[in-house]
């Protein structure tokens, strides 16, 4: 067992003998503790021809273990006012919750039992399968979701781990067998793939003792490295419109494949994205589309550099009659920033904002837990909170300009929209 304690945010990180990483940050803010157990077990690790396995695994994980029935788990959590959330992303399955400090031992025991010894009972799989199908049907009726899913498919292709639907399709969900869940769990929900972050009103030594006790004897198998393939190369612009009858608004998702989280250009991209579609109400995009043209309630961009080349996504919700104008406005802003770069003032404002927002980013137990998990996943260091500002501060104008010039080209954009049928929109189908 190795332990490192640092200054600053002052988390304590321990690697247990079976490879599990435990990170504990004591905070006295409220008599509560946030627990976040994250496994590298997300959609990337499911069979490519059965999308939805990771999502369904997350849905059934907490529905019965070797030690606790589904009913007992529910009762023990409900009695303590705890809502355990199991979230699945492209890369991870996370179990997260906040409990009262006095309930920490019990709740940690439940969370790790759920992760370690799930039974995946067939009746529970049947119920959660039906819920997953209903959720997919709801997504089918949601223009924002449809536009975004279509965008990911355009950029990455339907079989790429970032391109396929995270929940799967109704057809693929119906094909999922218990064995799929058992196999994914056995292969990836293991101590060697676990980062357990505990943040709150708990002594680190006590939290570590409890975590070590709950994890003891849990052996990690061989964890296979699964690389994220690069996005397929594409030369020109691609557009697709999805008709969803009966809707009042059309949602647009527009963007590009960007860079990996560990790419040295990351901070320049982050600032560039803030200028484009974050600063204030939504950067240059909101200034144009919402403030100057009154076309949309929301227009913003988001940058999700990940293990693989994550996307830079622009989103807006517009009156169907304004779809062409809105896309043209996005084209204008993308082209302008890509061609001319930001102004000195924009760069300074965005940099000041991002640096100044660090205390807010680290205010709640939940946000600290997410920050520490992310730092661990990408190997950013336990003291990343103290280095982040200097990373941002060092970014120069020419780096931001270069980032904008590299990616912001309307002629290479993927544009997806979903909403009611109009003559103009159908031309994009």
């Amino acid at each position, binding site marked *: 067992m190795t332990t490192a304690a640092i200054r600053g945010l002052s988390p304590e990180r321990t690697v247990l003998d079976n490879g599990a990483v435990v990170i504990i940050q004591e905070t006295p803010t*409220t008599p509560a503790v946030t627990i976040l157990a994250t496994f590298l077990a997300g959609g990337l690790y499911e069979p490519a021809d059965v999308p939805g396995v990771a999502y369904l695994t997350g849905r059934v994980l907490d529905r019965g273990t070797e030690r606790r029935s589904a009913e007992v788990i529910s009762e023990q959590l*409900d009695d303590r006012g705890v809502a355990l*959330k199991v979230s699945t992303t492209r890369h991870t399955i996370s179990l997260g919750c906040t409990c009262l400090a006095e309930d920490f031992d019990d709740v940690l025991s439940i969370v790790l039992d759920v992760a370690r010894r799930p039974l995946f009972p067939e009746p529970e799989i049947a119920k959660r399968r*039906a819920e997953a199908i209903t959720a997919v049907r709801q997504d089918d009726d949601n223009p924002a979701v449809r536009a975004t899913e279509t965008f990911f498919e355009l950029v990455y292709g339907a079989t790429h781990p970032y391109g396929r639907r995270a929940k799967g399709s109704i057809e693929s969900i119906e094909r999922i067998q218990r064995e799929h869940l058992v196999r994914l769990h056995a292969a990836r929900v293991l101590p060697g793939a676990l980062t357990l972050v505990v943040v709150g009103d708990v002594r680190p030594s006590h939290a570590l003792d409890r975590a070590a006790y709950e994890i003891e004897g849990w052996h990690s198998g061989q964890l296979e490295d699964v690389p994220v393939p690069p996005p397929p190369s594409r030369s020109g612009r691609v557009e697709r419109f999805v008709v969803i009858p009966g809707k009042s608004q059309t949602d647009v998702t527009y963007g590009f494949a960007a860079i990996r989280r560990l790419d040295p250009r990351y901070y320049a991209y982050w600032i560039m994205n803030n200028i484009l579609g974050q600063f204030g109400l939504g950067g240059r995009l909101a200034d144009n589309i919402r403030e100057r043209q009154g076309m949309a309630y929301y227009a913003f961009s988001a940058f999700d550099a990940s293990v693989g080349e994550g996307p830079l996504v622009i989103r807006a919700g517009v009156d169907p009659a304004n779809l062409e104008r809105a896309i043209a406005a996005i084209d204008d802003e993308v082209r302008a920033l890509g061609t001319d770069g930001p102004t000195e003032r924009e760069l300074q404002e965005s940099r000041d904002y991002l640096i100044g927002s660090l205390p807010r980013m680290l205010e709640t137990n939940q946000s600290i837990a997410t920050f520490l998990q992310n730092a661990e996943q990408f190997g950013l260091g336990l003291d990343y909170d103290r280095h982040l500002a200097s990373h941002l501060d060092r970014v120069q104008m020419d780096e931001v300009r270069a980032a904008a010039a590299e990616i912001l080209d309307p002629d290479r954009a993927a544009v997806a929209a979903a909403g009611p049928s109009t003559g103009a929109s159908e031309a994009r189908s």
Partner: protein
Amino acid sequence: MDDMPVSEPYTAPRDTREVHLDNGLKIVVKSVRTAPLVSVWCWYRVGSRDEGPGHTGASHWVEHMNFKGTTNIPRDEMKGIVERFGGMWNGYTWIDQTTYLETAGRDALDQMLFIEAERMANGIYDPAECESERTVIISELQGGENDPDQLLDSEVTATAFRAHPYRHPTIGWIEDLKRMTRDELYAHYRRFYIPNNATLVVVGDVELDDALRLAEKRFGHIQPGPEPARTMVAEPPQLGERRVVIERPGTTGYLKLAWHAPAARDEDFFPMLVLDAVIAGAKGTNIWCSFRGMPPQRRARLYTALVERGLASSVSGALLPTAQPFLYTLSLTAMEGVDLPAVEAAAFDEIERLRTSGATEVEVARARRQLRARTVFENDSVTNIAHQLGYFETVTGPGFYTALRDCIDAVTPEQVADAARRRLSRQQCTVGWFKPTSAGAEGAR
């Protein structure tokens, strides 16, 4: 009604200071030194209940306009003041209140107070900006209509109320949004945005005296106005079940059951809050942060009766503290392949069981514990603490918030059973269906 068992007289905790300026502005300052941050919220006692026919949506539109520049802050400068300190800002409008917030580093306190003082006294309401914002708000409304659950919620609320202005959506009806003029908006603004109709809340890494001095410097000169006249409307008793069915293209069926709820200061409020936790799981009382995820609900009545039996994919309940009696609403999503009548029948069966037999001691104890835990979880940041102080000061008045936990603890199973029996009858219910159709057939009846 004013029957809530609040201990009197109310005194603020030691880390909190409350003062009234001469112009009537109430200021609440609380020192919370867990992070180098300050959250400033300015609350106005104006919401959609203060809007008459033809002017629905005025309060929300006014909120939007108050981000569009003031006499001393040009529109394009609004953005950037707080951001320079790493801050965030926002605002929202609901049935009883409108509020604006900034949370930023402690050095930004004076700038945040400046923005709020400007917003209170010096809004410009440029006609061109009003026009531009009209289409933004219509876009916001259309975005809401894209969500069948939200669409159904508006229809159910409008059906449940006959007389009370709580019946119209906060965003307003589309025809009013198309018609309202700049001068009507400005008149609404001037009528309600006066210091004697507002509460300023400052929470964070501050010295109480310093914060009060800065607040007085920024707000002390603003002239009070005449107390806004308010039309008091009592909703007549509901004599029979009401029903609204929306048939539109879609993929999924949604059901809502809504009953008239007690106002926050009604003696039934806390028994109903516990009852809601028994039925659907406790969400707490912070509408700024507590309603984003699912509550602890797997042992809740409707979850076990509908979700666990494969009839619904989700259930949720909503009982919020309001100034006047609003609604208690249960929302259910029909599982794929399950018809809405089956979902409705099962939901009513469970409600009737509660009305007949009440909740068990175990259920009530669990609900109380969930609610107590929520009062901790929903106060985990200066922003959330400030929200709660301002919300309750504006909606319920002093003393309510500090008594919250005691009031939850005091609820008995008998009170819960009594509230269920009296308040959740089928005759008093408004039932809403969103019935998905294939493309082409749409309407409401």
